[in-house]
């Protein structure tokens, strides 16, 4: 599966045309209680989705690579999912919040570079990789790839991708991965491919690291929340936020502000492919089939900050896995 196959199945399905979230959920908080330094723009919950997709995608790859080689991974469907989801979330925030130019620019940069990477991989795998493919990860190099992708995903959940140590992985590939073994051609072809990938990412990561320092301030690593009792708390940002928020909800709290916002917050959940995707107190925004895990699908839903704890408890009760809460 690749650029060459056009399966009719859509990569991303919007819940409706244009704006699907109630307009009253999309109002900027005029007088936040949260200290100004901890306040983040309200539309960032949506704009962080495409960015986080670049975590979900390697995560899917890491899972996929346990059973398969990289050669058959559907890179082009993932590329399409980046741009389609970006379009859909954009329709939700457009006109409701001031345009966050810096964030859009960042999405374009990472979107384009990922598109280039995935397109190149797709072409390469279909023209060269295919010729040596073993189906399952049979060589030390294919297994190296699976391990490296897994580690990479774990890393980028907390830290920017460009800080990942590609260089030591490259050394590792040439020093600690056996040069002998069956599937001679596959081994060397993968070695070539992995060397290229790691070297390019090493150089590109260095450049992006420099650029980011010039353009963006260092990201905060926590999220300020104001609870119903007006108390201020600091929760871990990004990946660990969902678990921390659930814990507060289970203690009976609800949220007044998250990062200074009381408007809609976006979260994604995984449900079985045949799920009806209607959730109480929340609006479904779009659905993405999980191409490497066909029995499940990802649903992006939005709910006002004040209703988040109720929604989290409800999902927990229904046994639905929360993938991510986009804490602005």
């Amino acid at each position, binding site marked *: 599966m690749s650029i*060459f*196959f056009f399966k009719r199945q859509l990569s991303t399905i919007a819940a409706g045309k244009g704006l699907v979230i109630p307009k009253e959920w999309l109002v900027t908080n005029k007088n936040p209680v949260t200290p100004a330094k901890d306040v983040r723009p309200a539309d960032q919950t949506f704009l962080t989705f495409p960015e986080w997709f670049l975590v979900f995608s390697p995560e899917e790859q890491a899972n996929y690579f346990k059973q398969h080689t990289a050669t058959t991974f559907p890179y082009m469907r993932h590329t399409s999912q980046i741009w389609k989801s970006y379009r859909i979330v954009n329709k939700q925030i457009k006109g409701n919040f001031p345009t966050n130019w810096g964030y859009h620019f960042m999405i374009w940069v990472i979107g384009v570079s990922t598109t280039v990477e995935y397109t190149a991989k797709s072409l390469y795998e279909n*023209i060269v990789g*295919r*010729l040596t493919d073993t189906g399952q990860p049979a060589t030390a190099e294919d297994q190296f790839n699976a391990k490296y992708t897994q580690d990479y995903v774990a890393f980028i959940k907390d830290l920017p991708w460009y800080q990942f140590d590609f260089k030591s992985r490259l050394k590792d590939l040439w020093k600690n991965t056996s040069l002998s073994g069956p599937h001679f051609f596959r081994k060397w072809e993968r070695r*070539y491919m992995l*060397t*290229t990938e790691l*070297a*390019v990412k090493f150089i590109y990561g260095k450049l992006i690291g420099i650029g980011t320092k010039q353009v963006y301030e260092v990201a905060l690593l926590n999220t300020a929340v104001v609870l119903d009792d007006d108390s201020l708390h600091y929760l871990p940002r990004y990946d660990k936020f969902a678990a921390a928020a659930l814990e507060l909800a289970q203690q009976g709290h609800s949220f007044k502000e998250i990062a200074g916002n009381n408007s809609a917050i976006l979260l994604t959940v995984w449900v079985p492919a045949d799920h009806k995707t209607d959730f109480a107190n929340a609006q479904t925004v779009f659905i993405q089939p999980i191409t490497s895990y066909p029995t499940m699908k990802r649903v992006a839903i939005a709910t006002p900050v004040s209703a988040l704890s109720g929604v989290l408890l409800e999902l927990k009760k229904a046994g639905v896995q929360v993938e991510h809460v986009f804490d602005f």
Partner: protein
Amino acid sequence: MTFKDKLPVSYLLFTTRGRINRLTYWVAALFIWSTFYVLYNLLNAAFTPAATFIIYPLLFWALFATAAKRLHDTNKSAWWLACLLVPVAGPLWLVWLLGFRKGTIYPNRFGTVPGAAADYYKNDTGALIPHLKTEERLINDVTQLNPVLVAQIVVPQTVEELQQMVRTATRPLSVGGGRFSMGGQTASPQSIHIDMRALNKVLAFSAEQKTITVQAGARWCDIQHYIDPHGLSIKIMQTYANFTVGGALSVNCHGRYIGLGPLILSVRSLNVLLANGDIIQVSPTEKSEIFYACVGCYNAIAIIVNVTLDLEDNIAVKRQQVKMKGHAYKPYFFENVRENKDVIFHNGDIYPPFYKNIRAVSWVRTDEKPTEKTRLMPLAAAYPLERYFMGAFSKNHFGKWRREFIIDPLLYKFKKVHYRNYEAGYDVMELEPASRRQSTYVLQEYFVPVQKFDAFLALMSEIFIRHNVNVINVSIRHAKADSGSLLAWAREEVFAFVVYYKQNTDDAEKGRVAVWTRELIDAALSLDGAYYLPYQPHATSEQFHRAYPRAKELFTLKKELDPTGKFRNVIWDTYYK
């Protein structure tokens, strides 16, 4: 026909031979990948994904072949593709090399420059008539208007062979060089046609003396290639370099040079083969009566075997031009061009269909850097632009108007600095139409004493307009007086009018052309002028003798030296009694 001509696309995609430029490479890549894409999807849809594997060998081979050709263009062998094995840097470097790096501008060890012809345009070696059992062949010239059936064609490889042939010949002989003359000057019915082109060696060369001795079958372009590295240039030749030295000598050609004139002025000596088989050396001081019966005399009494010619420095020249009224040209020429030592080439172009305006173009000695990358004229395999312009100019009055008022002014806007060799290195190919079946382009030329310029211009224009002749261009040249050729066309200092026109190939048209040609000849004769002999022999016998009053002396000499009339061609068949 070679594989390349028969299956050009397969040749391009599946052989590693030769060179391709960047554009061809990109187009080929686009073609390869889009074909692959379509086939891949078709096979995948019709059969299974595994079925697509059968097109991979084709894909890789085509990619390899086109990449190898592109590498050749940059003078690198296909082994450089091994760079692909170096991760990152290798592929990037190859992308630059294959997709963006310019090819070498000269022929290299892998072939000629893409889109360039390997050689100057040549006429065929005589056409075979299907099913004919004899050795008879059709000899034709570049216009394709004058087919002559000859008994046999021979291509002597050595002078001895040629000598033997002349001694033992039982039939009349006709001699051909490049066969660019346009009226059967190289053939006679049932003669043995001698193709001189294999006798093309350089026999002696002195850079200090600035002389070269070559066999008569050598072409100007061959000599240019030989002397260019020494910074030398041919002193007198035509604008086109396709012609042989022997053919050029026999017509006593001229170029666009200023201060010079007929080719005879640059000839030191000749070796000529007489009808009795003897080879003798002749020059203006040695057996001069034979010398003057050879240069300009169309193989009347001898075959020219080799020649020693003067050379000049191959300097850079810059183009200058000015447009003026017809009557202003002669004074302009006398004031600015005639005595100007810096003017190397000069010609005036008279614009049809009204013949009122002239563009005077001079190429002047300069220290500026040449505007062309190559020292010698690069040869193109096709001249689509030239062909289009020629077609457009010859179509109607509007085409001629466009030329005079739009295209030429644009073309002359560009600065041009060429080497002398470059500017005398044109390929006749640039004039070749797609087909000469229905219509053909033909040359004529008239000479008048310089003081009669205005008078001839008026007579000529009137004839062209009255006969509605489709003239494409009339080019004015200048020549000093001849030194004594018996068929000298410049008995004194003359202006030459080179007429390039288009005519149909049917008999009615040929007749019409004969009528106005004779009128033009009369016009030139009325001014003590002459017409040029390498073109169609429309002139009457009387006109011939008026234009060439010393022809009788030549005839007398021919009776003496070639009593059986061994050497023949249209001129002797027509005018020699």
